[in-house]
């Protein structure tokens, strides 16, 4: 009886979700959305998210460690136990001496990735942002090409949502329609404009063309374009194309020439949206590591710091790991070159692993929220928290393992028994195999 009741409630909530909270069709972009441009540098939503993660870490640490006490309590206790736990893990893998050197970097990587992944699951992400006005954007594209007097040279896809204008703020309504338009390569601007008129009329009014030219290829019927234009004019809330004659400037407005319609023969200089706009949200924040630039930055830094530790421990002897005299052992020479290659390949596998996991998680959440607005995404949110933690662990642990590998003396595995202390001019630096109890007990 109880189970049936729960099932009914869950189904009711799911059904309500479909009716009242169905989101518009998700729009998936791989590069981060440009939020601002400072000089030549674009500030993307993912960069903003990294800054937010840094702010959370810095302010959080500052707040939790103000008025530190010898016997910690509350927040200080929490942060100390986190750091102690991490340090313990690092120490177990790297040994006491190396842990002191590796921990600041490894711990920072772990905390930064973890916080960046977890704050990306909060509601401010992917929801608040600029609205990008695609209604005007498409018209502007056609206008620019008409000015050049050339056909389009590549395909262009546009996807946008119907948005209410609420006092200058665009709002995507639940169950809002999705407007799709495609410009084909090799298409004349005048034909593209005709198809755009039909697409807008189909979207805003009851108009139905005799041939589906708005979304297909080829020229639309002349009668269809005329009927579509008339339908747009008749509806007060539908967008209005403004003809050149209305301005009386000989077809010039805002410094742009008008674009003439192939079927109508009229020239239009502007497009006006008196009712709903067709636009898209360009969010201020998107998961920091759902962009390859950010993960690549981490990967390159990880690579550099590993090489730095290698040189710091072994001096130029570090290069001896990769460049082996072919007269001594030609096979090892080949192996050395491959190892050198694998050092660089790590950059890419570091970058793509994190990017792939976080980006895929974001897409999964977006699509599932679109399909089943309530309840179902909760499970995926839980999964994403787990993935965020796992990725932070994997990134920092691999960095640590590679770092331990880099500071080990060349050929350590083969020389465990020989006890050649005097051999290494590195002296006091990081004699790793002495710190490993397993290595000493081996003989």
């Amino acid at each position: 009886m109880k189970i049936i009741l729960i099932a009914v409630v869950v189904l009711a909530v799911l059904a309500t979700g479909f009716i009242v909270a169905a989101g518009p069709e998700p729009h998936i972009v791989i590069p981060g959305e440009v939020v601002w441009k400072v000089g030549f540098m674009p500030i993307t939503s993912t960069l903003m998210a990294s800054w937010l993660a840094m702010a959370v870490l810095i302010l959080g640490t500052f707040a939790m460690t103000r008025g530190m006490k010898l016997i910690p309590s509350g927040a200080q206790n929490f942060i100390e136990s986190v750091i102690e736990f991490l340090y313990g893990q690092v120490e177990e893998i790297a040994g006491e001496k190396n842990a002191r050197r590796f921990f600041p970097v490894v711990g920072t990587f772990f905390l930064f990735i973890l916080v960046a992944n977890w704050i990306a699951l909060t509601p401010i992400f992917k929801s608040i942002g600029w609205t990008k006005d695609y209604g005007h954007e498409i018209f502007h594209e056609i206008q620019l090409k008409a000015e050049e007097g050339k056909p389009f040279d590549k395909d262009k896809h546009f996807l946008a949502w119907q948005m209410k204008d609420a006092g200058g703020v665009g709002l995507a309504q639940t169950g809002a329609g999705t407007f799709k338009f495609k410009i084909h390569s090799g298409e004349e601007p005048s034909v593209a404009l005709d198809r755009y008129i039909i697409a807008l009329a189909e979207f805003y009014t009851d108009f139905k063309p005799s041939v589906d030219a708005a979304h297909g290829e080829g020229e639309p019927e002349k009668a269809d374009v005329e009927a579509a234009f008339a339908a747009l004019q008749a509806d007060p809330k539908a967008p209005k194309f403004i003809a050149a004659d209305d301005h009386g400037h000989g077809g010039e407005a805002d410094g742009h020439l008008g674009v003439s319609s192939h079927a109508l023969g009229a020239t239009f200089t502007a497009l006006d949206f008196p009712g709903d706009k067709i636009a898209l949200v360009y969010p201020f924040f998107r998961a920091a590591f759902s962009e390859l630039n950010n993960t690549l930055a981490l990967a390159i830094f990880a690579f550099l710091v590993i090489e730095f530790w290698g040189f710091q421990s072994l001096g130029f002897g570090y290069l001896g790991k990769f460049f082996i005299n072919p007269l001594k052992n030609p096979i090892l020479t080949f192996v050395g070159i491959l190892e050198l290659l694998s050092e660089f390949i790590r950059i890419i596998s570091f970058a793509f692993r994190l990017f792939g996991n976080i980006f895929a998680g974001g897409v999964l959440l977006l699509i599932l929220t679109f399909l089943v607005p309530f309840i179902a995404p909760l499970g995926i949110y839980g999964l994403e928290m787990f993935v965020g933690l796992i990725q932070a662990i994997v990134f920092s642990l691999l960095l640590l393992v590679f770092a331990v590998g880099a500071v080990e003396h060349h050929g350590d595995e083969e020389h465990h028994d020989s006890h050649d202390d005097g051999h290494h001019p590195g002296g006091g630096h990081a004699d790793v195999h002495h710190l490993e109890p397993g290595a000493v007990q081996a003989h």
Partner: protein
Amino acid sequence: MKSWLVPAASLLGAGWFFATAVILGVVVGRWADDRTGLEPTFTLVGIVVGLAVALIGGYRMLQPLMSRLGDEPPE
């Protein structure tokens, strides 16, 4: 905690490393073929080098793990 954490992370890392090494070898090989017109020479070379890097690099990544697992006394 550590006993399963390190092997798990290393295995996750090694999988990606294998894939990246092989794919990168093929991509670079194809690019070189395009530039030189010597198809399919460099693609084959790329596959071989990618596989070799995957094998040797992967072995190096997993070796400490394998020896550690071997050292553990049977329960």
